[in-house]
């Protein structure tokens, strides 16, 4: 009953947000196309890099395209779905409106998620999907059910992981108004990082984005499994196949940290 009510409310939030954006159809369409083109330009930069150097640490352009597509699709989903946590700091905490959420008989996380669902990031999603489709064609990947399932789960897991980062950013805003700048380096830095094979980075950097923030589980490990490559640092195939789970766990952990942040707010009132 409670879950049904929460789901109904969530869908209501989505409907309201979508209707709001559709009031300004031109602005919405321009945003959508701009996202698509912006990412297209970025992709051209990567493409010209490979046209010049051929490969990157043994990874060819179509292989990197697989990483790129998955990373951007995952990030685009999180930007749409977890947008509420992204804007929470400056639109809710700064205005002193968090009290309103506490005065309502629903989980605060659900209400924050419901603040906004920004559809223009679907432009980014579409661009990622196009690059992914191109990679698939070029590589001649035989999509078995298992491989397709892994790719879809990995994108979902990656979306969870990025959403978790937005949740962390929202938690930090209980303490400081500078949360946006601090977490943006990880969030946007993360999606940039994930567009290339993790093997090319320095050891500490790779470890940070594997064990602290499970960025490697978003596309690098799943891509290794899909391409049938072995990991140079020796991560077993089992982990590669399980990797979507870690992104989801990451989100669950950050939601616990969210509860901690809310408790802090309720004891300090700031």
């Amino acid at each position, binding site marked *: 009953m409670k879950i049904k009510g929460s789901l109904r409310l969530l869908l209501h939030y989505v409907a309201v947000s979508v209707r*709001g954006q559709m009031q300004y159809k031109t602005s919405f369409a321009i945003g959508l196309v701009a996202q698509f083109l912006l990412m297209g330009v970025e992709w051209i930069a990567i493409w010209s890099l490979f046209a010049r150097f051929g490969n990157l640490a043994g990874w060819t352009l179509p292989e990197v395209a697989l990483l790129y597509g998955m990373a951007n699709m995952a990030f685009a989903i999180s930007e749409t779905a977890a947008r509420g946590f992204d804007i929470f700091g400056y639109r809710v905490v700064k*205005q002193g409106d968090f009290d309103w959420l506490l005065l309502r008989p629903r989980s605060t996380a659900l209400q924050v998620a419901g603040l906004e669902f920004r559809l223009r990031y679907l432009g980014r999603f579409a661009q990622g999907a196009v690059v992914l489709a191109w990679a698939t064609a070029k590589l001649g990947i035989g999509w078995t059910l298992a491989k397709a399932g892994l790719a879809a789960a990995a994108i979902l897991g990656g979306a969870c992981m990025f959403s978790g980062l937005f949740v962390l950013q929202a938690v930090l805003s209980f303490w400081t108004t500078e949360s946006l700048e601090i977490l943006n380096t990880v969030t946007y830095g993360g999606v940039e990082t994930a567009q290339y094979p993790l093997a090319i980075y320095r050891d500490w950097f790779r470890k940070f984005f594997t064990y602290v923030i499970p960025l490697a589980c978003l596309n690098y490990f799943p891509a290794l499994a899909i391409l049938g490559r072995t990991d140079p640092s020796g991560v077993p195939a089992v982990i590669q196949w399980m990797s979507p789970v870690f992104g989801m766990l990451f989100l669950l952990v950050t939601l616990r940290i969210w509860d901690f942040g809310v408790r802090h707010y*309720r004891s300090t009132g700031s």
Partner: protein
Amino acid sequence: MPFIEAEHLVKTFHVSEREPGIGGALRGLFHRRGREVRALDGVSFAIREGEMLGYIGPNGAGKSTTVKVLGGILVPDSGTCTVMGRVPWKDRVAHVRTIGAVFGQRTQLWWGLPVVESFDLLRDIYGVAAAEHARVLAELVEVLELGPLLSTPVRQLSLGQRMRCDLAASLLHSPRILFLDEPTIGLDAPAKLAVRDFLRKLNREKGVTVLLTTHDLDDIEALCERVLLINHGRILHDGTLADLRRRVTGEKRVVLDLADDGRDVSDPDATVIRREGKRIHLSFDPTRVTASALISRLTANHPVRDLTVENPPIEEIIARIYKDTAA
């Protein structure tokens, strides 16, 4: 057990002073500089069901902290509090179903949406059944005259219109208790009267318990029999407005409208406190001289055209208490 009960509530805030920029923010995360402010310093009171209580005090006195504790938003450092048998901060979700709130300065409505869509969202937030929602909404629309406003986006409403919509929003789930913070702030006179009328009706006819926080003492005089006065986190008065007056001063006022400018007005038992052209304000102590004796003397000695006897304005009394209790 009283409907609402607070005992020895204490809440201290840390007001941090931090350096600007990211570096300052990071340092602020680890060691905090600043000072302690005791917003509630042993606040106790009990409210019966169906009461309409005025809660007054200067800015920073602890009013909104009290309301936040009662609303389940804030956890106090110590002390106990129950609202309808529940500890607000321990059982937040069950507790907030029974209360409604209006903050005059901050709307709970969705800024970009038509009013009725905010109401629809609140229906799903509180999980009110469709038929029940329709019934309650129809009643509120009628009493608050919201009909023409329902399809208007909130951002296009005037302050008075918005306040009526906010009142409706706070009552859609039929709460037993309503917290109001400055519900008439910024409203013009007719809008103020409309809000007061509505609140009086709500309290009398529906038996909703109301805690009214305000700076507008006319609100209190119009609506509340009982007043809590707080300053520096302590309750200084819990009783009627008349008691509050008597406690501070027994003095009364006579206002004379004279035919001349009354330069020579004086009386051994009264003091001239203000002159406005041909109008003169005098204050006197009713235990030393009766109003009738003073009036007959004044009318005998001066060309009095009109005259009223009144209490000192409540603002003056409050100001005097604040001054007396200033730290």
